[in-house]
């Protein structure tokens, strides 16, 4: 769907969907240069998610990708990653993690 949205752009240079607004939730998407996509669902009308997504991406590169024991494409099981993710979300002030 991300790729199709690029095709349908009326102007060139489209990099795909950044925000999807639904009736009951918004979906924010961050695409890294490698193509890895990070998604966050929020209440409708939440702003300022770009910074949070960038922060989460930095945490991802630090705790997951730089982990020598991590195999790419496998689910992430790292306590430091979970801890720092929760901290970043709490620091943001507007969000809180629900479940795992």
């Amino acid at each position: 769907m991300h790729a199709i949205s690029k095709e349908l752009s009326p102007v060139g240079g489209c990099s795909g969907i950044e925000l999807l607004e639904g009736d009951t939730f918004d979906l924010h998407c961050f695409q890294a240069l490698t193509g890895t996509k990070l998604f966050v669902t929020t209440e409708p009308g939440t702003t300022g998610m770009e910074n949070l997504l960038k922060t989460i991406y930095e945490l991802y590169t630090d705790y997951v990708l730089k982990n020598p024991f991590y195999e790419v494409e496998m689910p992430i099981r790292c306590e430091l990653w979970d801890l720092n993710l929760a901290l970043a979300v709490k620091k943001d002030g507007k969000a809180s993690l629900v479940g795992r």
Partner: protein
Amino acid sequence: MAALAPTSRMRCMYIFNRNGVCLHYHVWMRPHTTLSQQQDQKLMFGLLFSLKSFTAKMDPVGGNKGNLGMPSLPGQGCSFHSFRTNTYKLSFMESPSGIKLILVTDPRMGDLREALRFIYNNIYVEYVVKNPLYTLGQPFKCELFNSTLDQYVKTLQ
């Protein structure tokens, strides 16, 4: 296809019926097209169908998720009303009869839900559906529709 002011944020508009037939395609400013018009319309309809199913399934609130793969009825489950990329914003509205209105605009455009509702109720229904010479389910060409739409769109900045 009237020329709008260079500062206008409107790019193009599609109207589809529930079977995927593109009833109307209106373009104001589209400097970049990669596909033929037919392919473009098919792709657009397909994308909307997928996005609607995706939104209904991803809904963190709401009970009835329906069956995976089954097309959902208009109004059933959570639906999206717009998405934004770095180059454009797409606003979407589906009427209870399955008529889908899509407006592609500049990404800085605000919420167009009211505008879409107005276009459906006061322009599409008045000038197209109520036209005795029009057969439902067919693409249409109507000068009054085009001119009223252009006039209304000029007020949307």
